[in-house]
């Protein structure tokens, strides 16, 4: 220990002039008033900033220079034998030299900051708010920089000074490590896991620092007075650690994205309108902020990986449940979407690309009930495509294309041949396109005094339900576009259009669940008391006239404090189906003919529940 300290002291003393220069540099910030743009009020701040900049620049350059020379120069000039001929162990020599080097860099930084801090600068107290906490201070960063740059400069110095073939190995291994690391990083980035990436980056950084230090120690203790053997030992140690580390990183990232539905912890999802398929996504065990998404066959254990959960509008099922499509950004080109499709009725369903791609802009879209046709409204242009071939079946501009951004746009196929387009600007505009003949008819609706935020319709499009802040719920005739009735519901009440055109309002008042039933023409005919609760979550029509909903207690969104109810609207009866279940809501594209509810949440898990048979089986989540 004394030997190491004696050696460290010697290294520091040998570099006295550098320390004096650092102190002199620390006086430079006092010249800040001479800089243009520095007012009298900001002199102190400018001085502090200058001092930090000087200290950082000096610290980094000295760290590099000292790191490259503390062992390397003595080795190259044949003077390391002096220390090796003394009773100093290899670790003592190594420790003494590097301790001295670190001490020199720390002293340089301190001396550069000393004059300014004596005058009362706040440099030592400044911190940069960030998620990394206490090390996000200037001093914290400098310590990390020193711990990284000193052994890095030493390693690079040795590699170049030794003039041996090991340099080639170093360069190749470095390239491999960087390549694999970049691939792993990209894997996480593309799969929307930035926090996990940050954690991996920090751990990798620590590994690099550790590996550099271990390799440096190995170089001194095994190479001793020989540059070549030292380089050899160092390279072997360094690259075995880094290649191993990067292999683990790569393996881990591969494992992360290879998650299956059984790995999901907090599961969310929605089901296809018909059939057994559903979209399931959520957080997964040991995978940080990566949220895998799957198409799951709820009747078996087949599933299709969909990468990471993007947003609800990502995946859309056809009404007959035979297909699912999604719009994905094209790899490498951030400005285009491409349409991908999967046939769910095949034996081994898999996502495949179509030839259809669109620019990334606001759009409205719809899928025909059989999934064979895709309609897109973008920038005022309406197009209908055949999914499998990519053929354009119709393309035209709307007569008065919506100009503004926040315009409600909804498209819906009626059968395979008729497309309905709803846009709300100053008024509701209803367009109907006959795909075969490419004939477009336009029906104008009522003027809207404020923006509409939702629109739903019956399967025949004979009744429409809209929502706006100013007019509340508007029930309209879908054929003519005329408003039948405007209802301003009570606070926290939501409206639902039934498949036969009747309107249901649900909500809670005074901690009691309430349901109101209106006719096709908007006349209130029934009010039902659903019992105590804080929120109503509507599932959908299990059968025509029979509504499934949950009455939830407490503020939490995912909770098992709920009662699942079956409401017979005609008979006016409320029946309890189960406890602890909440319907898993469909994606935000509000429309009627909501699928008969099949997926429910039980706490953080997603389950399949049949309201008729009362049979429940778990799908995903714990």
């Amino acid at each position: 220990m004394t030997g190491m300290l004696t050696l460290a002291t010697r290294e520091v003393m040998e570099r006295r002039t550098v320390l004096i220069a650092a102190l002199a540099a620390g006086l430079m910030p006092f010249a800040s008033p001479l800089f243009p743009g520095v007012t009298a009020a900001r002199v102190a701040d400018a001085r502090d900033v200058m001092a930090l900049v000087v200290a950082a620049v000096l610290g980094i350059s000295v760290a590099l220079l000292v790191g490259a020379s503390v062992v390397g120069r003595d080795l190259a000039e044949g003077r390391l034998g002096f220390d090796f001929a003394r009773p100093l162990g290899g670790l003592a020599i190594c420790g003494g030299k590097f301790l001295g080097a670190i001490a020199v860099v720390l002293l340089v930084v301190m001396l550069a900051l000393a004059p300014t801090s004596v005058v009362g600068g706040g440099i030592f107290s400044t911190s940069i708010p960030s998620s990394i906490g206490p090390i996000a201070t200037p001093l914290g960063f400098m310590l990390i920089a020193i711990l990284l740059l000193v052994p890095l400069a030493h390693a690079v110095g040795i590699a170049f000074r030794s003039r041996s073939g090991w340099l080639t190995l170093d360069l190749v291994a470095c390239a491999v490590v960087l390549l694999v690391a970049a691939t792993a990083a990209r894997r996480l980035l593309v799969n929307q896991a930035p926090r996990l990436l940050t954690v991996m980056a920090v751990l990798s950084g620590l590994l690099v620092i550790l590996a550099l230090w271990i390799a440096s120690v190995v170089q001194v203790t095994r190479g001793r007075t020989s540059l070549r053997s030292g380089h050899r030992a160092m390279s072997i140690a360094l690259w075995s650690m880094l290649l191993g580390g990067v292999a683990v990183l790569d393996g881990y990232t591969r494992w992360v994205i290879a998650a299956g539905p059984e790995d999901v912890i907090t599961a969310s999802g929605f089901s296809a309108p018909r059939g057994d398929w559903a979209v399931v996504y959520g957080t997964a065990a040991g995978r940080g902020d990566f949220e895998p998404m799957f198409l799951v066959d709820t009747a078996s254990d087949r599933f299709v990986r969909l990468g990471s959960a993007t947003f609800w509008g990502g995946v859309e099922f056809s009404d007959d449940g035979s297909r699912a499509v999604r719009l994905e950004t094209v790899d490498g080109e951030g400005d285009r979407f491409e349409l991908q499709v999967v046939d769910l009725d095949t034996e081994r369903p898999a996502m495949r690309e179509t030839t259809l791609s669109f620019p990334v802009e606001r759009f409205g879209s719809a899928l025909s009930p059989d999934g064979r046709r895709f309609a897109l409204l973008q920038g005022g242009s309406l197009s209908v495509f055949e999914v499998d071939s990519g053929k354009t079946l119709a393309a035209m501009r709307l007569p008065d294309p919506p100009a503004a951004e926040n315009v409600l746009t909804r498209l819906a196929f009626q059968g395979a041949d008729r497309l309905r387009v709803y846009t709300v600007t100053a008024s509701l505009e209803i367009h109907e396109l006959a795909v075969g003949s490419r004939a477009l008819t336009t029906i104008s609706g009522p003027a809207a005094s404020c923006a509409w935020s939702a629109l739903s319709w019956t399967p025949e499009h004979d009744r429409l339900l809209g929502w706006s802040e100013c007019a509340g719920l508007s029930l309209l005739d879908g054929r003519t576009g005329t408003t039948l009735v405007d209802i301003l519901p009570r606070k926290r009440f939501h409206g639902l259009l039934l498949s036969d055109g009747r309107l249901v309002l649900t909500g809670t008042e005074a901690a009691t669940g309430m349901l109101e039933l209106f006719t096709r023409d908007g006349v209130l005919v029934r009010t039902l008391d659903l019992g105590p609760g804080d929120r109503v979550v509507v599932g959908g029509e299990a059968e025509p006239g029979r509504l499934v909903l949950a009455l939830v207690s407490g503020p939490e969104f995912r909770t098992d404090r709920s009662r699942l109810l079956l409401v017979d609207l005609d008979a006016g009866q409320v029946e309890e189906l189960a406890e602890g279940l909440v319907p898993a809501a469909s994606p935000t594209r509000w429309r009627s003919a909501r699928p008969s509810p099949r997926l429910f949440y039980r706490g953080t898990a997603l389950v399949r529940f049949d309201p008729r048979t009362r049979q429940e089986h778990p799908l995903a989540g714990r």
Partner: protein
Amino acid sequence: MNDSRPVTAHAVPIAIDGLTVRYGRKVALDAVSLRVEHGAVYALLGRNGAGKSSLVRCLLGQQKPDHGRVSLLGLDAWRNRAAAMRRTGVVPEEPDAPPGMNVKSLAAFCARLYPTWDHDAVEQRFARFGVPRDVPFGRLSKGQKGLVSLALALGHSPELLVLDDPTLGLDVAARRGLFEELVGDLADRRTTVLMTTHDLGGIEGIADRVGILRDGRLAVDEEMEALKSRHAETSSALEEIFLAVTGEGVEARR
């Protein structure tokens, strides 16, 4: 002579067995074995490239042998280098002390590393050599550097002294001073010495055993007296013997 150091029984100062060193395909040392007994002065001779430097590096634990064992005072040179160096003094071929440190601070540095450092003796040596204490090592003459290196090597009264071509490039006065100091130390402490050198005339009187390395092998390893009497008919000058053994230029001189 008062020698109160504990004698490590059975620990030969230098024992090299089957030392082999290879650089790629080139064999620098081929199964070399030699012993240097207590109090002996061993002169290791050899042309440049004969393997002397490799041998010295392995001897001082600075290079790992490819085969064979090197032990210094009973300690493995590679594995126990620091312990062996506590009792060994080294004078290198090229003076390697930090050039920025002056003689005084060099002595102070070494003093902290050895429990047996004799400060007064070191000061007396510096005085005898006439070396200025406050001049940085890098600015001393070659001769002064060599003498300072010797003084630093002797400062902790080592049992074993290893000198690698200590008189290379030294002027006459420095050379004489070095040998006188060496001989004085031998007289006082019965130090064991291994010296590699090209200065055959200088060590002829001092060395009592000679080894000659040729192409990585020890062609000669013999008592000085015996070697000379064997060559008495031709020429007993060490220089002549050396030339004869290494096979260079003998015919020309004849």
